């Protein structure tokens, strides 16, 4: 009896916490000033919120139907893996498109190479050469920037 009361309390707490985290993430996305600040809310807050909701659902079905449920854990793991990748790609897109940002967002220059920011061409790796059959290097024509 006591076990069910405690389990219900835990599930209710996880549900409300998930809702609050998701709400806070979306509120951050609505209120922050530029794109790179807006990226923080959804990638962290919303992911944590949905993790809470899915774990609450897993606990509920495990307790009420008396068998172990792991499908929700699968979704949680997938979201926790894919959210940083999405955030990284969105940040790269924002840097590439030269979005407006406020002064406090800008990092120091050596953090990014020029080709990461879109200021220069993507570096081409040097070609492997045969150890003894060296051929005269042809001069590569300089492409206009």
């Amino acid at each position, binding site marked *: 009896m006591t076990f069910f009361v405690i389990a219900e309390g835990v599930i209710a707490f996880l549900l409300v916490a998930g*809702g609050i985290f998701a709400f806070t993430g979306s509120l951050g996305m609505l209120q922050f000033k530029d*794109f790179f600040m807006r990226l923080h809310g959804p990638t962290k807050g919303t992911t944590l919120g949905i993790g809470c909701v899915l774990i609450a659902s897993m606990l509920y079905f495990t307790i009420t139907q008396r068998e172990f449920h792991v499908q929700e854990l699968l*979704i949680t793991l997938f979201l926790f893996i894919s959210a940083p990748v999405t955030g990284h790609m969105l940040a790269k897109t924002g840097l590439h498109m030269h979005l407006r940002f406020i002064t406090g967002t800008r990092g120091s220059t050596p953090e990014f190479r020029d080709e990461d920011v879109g200021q220069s061409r993507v570096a081409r790796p040097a070609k492997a050469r045969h150890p003894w059959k060296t051929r005269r290097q042809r001069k590569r024509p300089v492409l206009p920037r």
Partner: protein
Amino acid sequence: MLDTALMISLMLIVLAMAMNIYRLAIGPDIPDRLLALDTLYVNSIALIVLLGLWLNTKTYFEAAMLIAMLGFVSTMAICRYLLRGDIIE
């Protein structure tokens, strides 16, 4: 207690989705809209899971899984299109 928690959670997530849609409408640049779409699908997964809790069925988890995978793939595709001008080179 569980019903009240479920109602509060549903309300908060619907509010979050409304804010996402607002950002999707007013977003000044394309990556803002893309970020809003990304958050919208994540919130829709939460909504589907809460619907499954409300109706006491586990029918909807496959739908949530499908939305998670397709949303990730589509966000990646649009990011690559914006970055390189092409999806598969």
